[in-house]
């Protein structure tokens, strides 16, 4: 098989995982591991290390844009984003039956309330709202967060019927550190040679980690990156953009392809941000709960759902754009996403101060028409190519 065929096969595999609304990979994993449990989590961030250390499979539940919403719409008013509709649809249609529990992280009011809805709708399943501190003092917010981590740990121990030992947790931290390093390598390669590592492929590779065991995902990332970088692709006359705003409800992968086809190399983004929430390795020695708390409080990424303590909203985005030598920024948020859209005016102000061109549009996970986005992105790319000073 040629290198091209091999990379295509990997992409096809990841694409199949992405489109599989029945979570077949999770079912297969459970069949291969009799008695083992799978625990879902919503965007953005949960400490998957805890689930892994319990011998369970962490499963990302990011909604689904391709499924028909039959009952999900009956739970939400028209002005609420799409993600909870498809999550409810997945739940009530039995597609999440392979999950033995689910974590709802602290993102926004909608996901927060969805955690309570889940308790009412699925009273027999373990459902946990995972609160995270907005105070970043280790003695204050850190203490609270350690208690939250221990609470999840305790619940997982009950669910699994066995203790989560510190050694197991340290080993899980180590394997997720590898995962973070490989994701970082993928993003770095994409930024350097986006014609070899297109964003839509990269997206599928990251997304595969939402249903695969982390060890398998690590191997997949290695294999893909090696094959992708070895292929014979030439650079095109595209502009380099950073996409921001898509950290929770995910855009259809076709939308990412549309941006690239419109002449935009996506050299960084906040898709599936939870996978890259921690920006450096977590200490795999010593107290693992303390290490996870330290990483969250002191080494996590900037995001609209997280309190910007220094008041410099948007500056992290500008820094990424500069670091990745982006020509422009694409604000691309889901409709009715409070954190992204409330943050956007501040981020736009920072981007304008830095004199970086930008454009913006809204999507939802089930957006099916991309012509307008293609025209807008194409015009944006043309304007930079033709008239920018650089």
């Amino acid at each position, binding site marked *: 098989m040629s290198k091209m065929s091999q990379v295509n096969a990997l992409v096809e595999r990841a694409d199949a995982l992405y489109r599989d609304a029945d979570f077949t990979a999770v079912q297969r994993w459970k069949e291969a591991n009799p008695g083992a449990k799978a625990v879902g989590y919503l965007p953005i961030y949960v400490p998957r290390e805890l689930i892994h250390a319990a011998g369970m499979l962490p499963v990302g539940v990011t909604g689904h844009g391709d499924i028909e919403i039959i009952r999900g719409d009956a739970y939400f008013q028209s002005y609420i984003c799409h993600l909870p509709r498809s999550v409810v649809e997945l739940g009530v249609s039995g597609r999440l039956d392979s999950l033995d529990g689910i974590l709802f992280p602290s993102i926004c009011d909608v996901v927060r309330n969805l955690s309570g809805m889940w308790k009412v709708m699925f009273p027999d399943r373990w459902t946990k709202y995972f609160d995270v501190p*907005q105070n970043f003092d280790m003695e204050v917010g850190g203490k609270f967060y350690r208690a939250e981590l221990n609470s999840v740990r305790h619940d997982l121990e009950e669910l699994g019927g066995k203790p989560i030992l510190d050694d197991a947790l340290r080993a899980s931290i180590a394997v997720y550190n590898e995962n973070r390093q490989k994701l970082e390598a993928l993003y770095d390669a994409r930024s350097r040679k986006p014609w070899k590592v297109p964003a839509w492929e990269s997206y599928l590779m990251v997304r595969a980690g939402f249903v695969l065991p982390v060890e398998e995902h690590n191997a997949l990332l290695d294999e893909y990156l090696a094959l992708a970088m070895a292929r014979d692709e030439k650079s095109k006359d595209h502009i380099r953009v950073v996409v921001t705003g898509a950290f929770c409800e995910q855009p259809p992968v076709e939308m990412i392809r549309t941006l690239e086809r419109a002449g935009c190399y996506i050299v960084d983004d906040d898709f599936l941000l939870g996978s890259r929430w921690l920006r450096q390795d977590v200490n795999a020695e010593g107290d693992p709960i303390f290490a996870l708390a330290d990483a969250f409080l002191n080494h996590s990424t900037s995001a609209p759902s997280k309190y910007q303590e220094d008041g410099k909203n948007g500056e992290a985005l500008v820094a990424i754009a500069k670091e990745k030598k982006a020509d422009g920024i694409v604000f691309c948020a889901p409709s009715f996403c409070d954190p992204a859209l*409330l943050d956007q005016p501040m981020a736009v102000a920072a981007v304008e101060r830095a004199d970086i061109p930008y454009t913006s549009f809204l999507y939802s996970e089930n957006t099916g028409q991309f012509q307008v986005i293609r025209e807008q992105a194409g015009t944006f790319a043309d304007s930079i190519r033709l008239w920018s000073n650089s």
Partner: protein
Amino acid sequence: MSGAQTEDVHKEPSMRLQKDMIGGHFQALANAKKNGKKVVYTFVPGNLAELLAAFEVLPVLPEINALQSGMRKKSGMFIGEAEKLGHSEDVCTYVKCDIGMLKNGNIGPTGEKLPDPDLLLLSYTGCFTFLKWFELLRQEYDCPIAMLHVPYQADGKIEPGHREYVVNQLRTEVIPKLEEVTGKKFDIDKLREHLKLSVQAEDDFVAVLESAKHRPSPIDSYFGGVYYIGPMFTSFRGSEAGVTYYRALRQEVEKRLAAGVGPITPDGPMGEEKFRLVVEGPPNWTSFREFWKMFHDEGAVVVASSYTKVGGLYDRGFRHDPENPLETLADYCAGCYTNLNLPQRIDLLCQYVEEFDADGLLINSVKSCNSFSAGQLLILREVEKRTGRPGGFVESDLVDPRYFSGANIKNRLESYLQMIDQKRSVGVSAAPGMPHSKVDVEMGP
């Protein structure tokens, strides 16, 4: 939480008293800089009124500014202004109204400019939007910000660790910043004195809310209720003025109770009480009087509401505890309605329907407030199922006049009340699973 009124409006004496109190507060704000008073912007749910009073600072509550702009018919213009500046159509209109008002000179309801804040106290209770709101305001003002993160009651109770977390933040973040801004040392005994005053007012406030259990109810616990919660949820909890107000209000309500008469509406005393409703969700402010009229014209009185609990569930027994000043502030913050999880909210609404012998639950779902609105359709179903009484559903917004469709709401409300009437006439209450007035779609796993 009250707003501007026109002169032909019928007012209860307590409303006049409240108007004078609010007028005095805005006067004090207008003169704050001249008089060397420090000004703290903060939010209504889980506000730290007693702590602010202990530091002798003047609070400004942006939600109140926004709702007053709504009642004064200015919010549409302010929201439009904010949207022109790049704020999304999809987000909270309180925020956009406040930003628009700020960009138009920050003129308060008395026609005088509100002073700039000396501190932004981000008491982040039950609403993620608060966090972004003050991040936005911080871009406009050169002042410090104190963050108070209040954990959600995800498991239906205030965990000891959550209380400790809030107390730690009060000690290490909020109080030091108040000391820095005011130049005053924190005096815990002074805080205790204010908390004692809160308790007095809280007792009278609860008596007023509980009066709606009588037939006819002497109060409307939603439209009238927003006036009754005004001093308690804003600047007057923990003050002598607050104690005086709630004593006067209680006496006024008890007088009506003894006379066997219903609530006073803006159009005069309400006629025969025909329907007793529990309402979930905030009211619409841009057409507040029109909205209320739709109810009282039909003889519908709201006997209990969740909106009047956004500043605390006093009716479920919470009282500030002067013996444990910081812990009681933590419990207060964590106990506000929008910080309760969905199962707690359902339980509470079911209790209200039963305890107040209501005909059913009506939800006013506002576009702006996901904290309230996300999950309301499930709440409606569950309350119907558990109480066997029909639910109704109307939609509007807080302060965006574009989202108030009077004809639609009136139509839905009338249909809902007719449905209640029909069920009465055939001698049955709504059975579980019976269709309600908006959606009749199969739900549930």
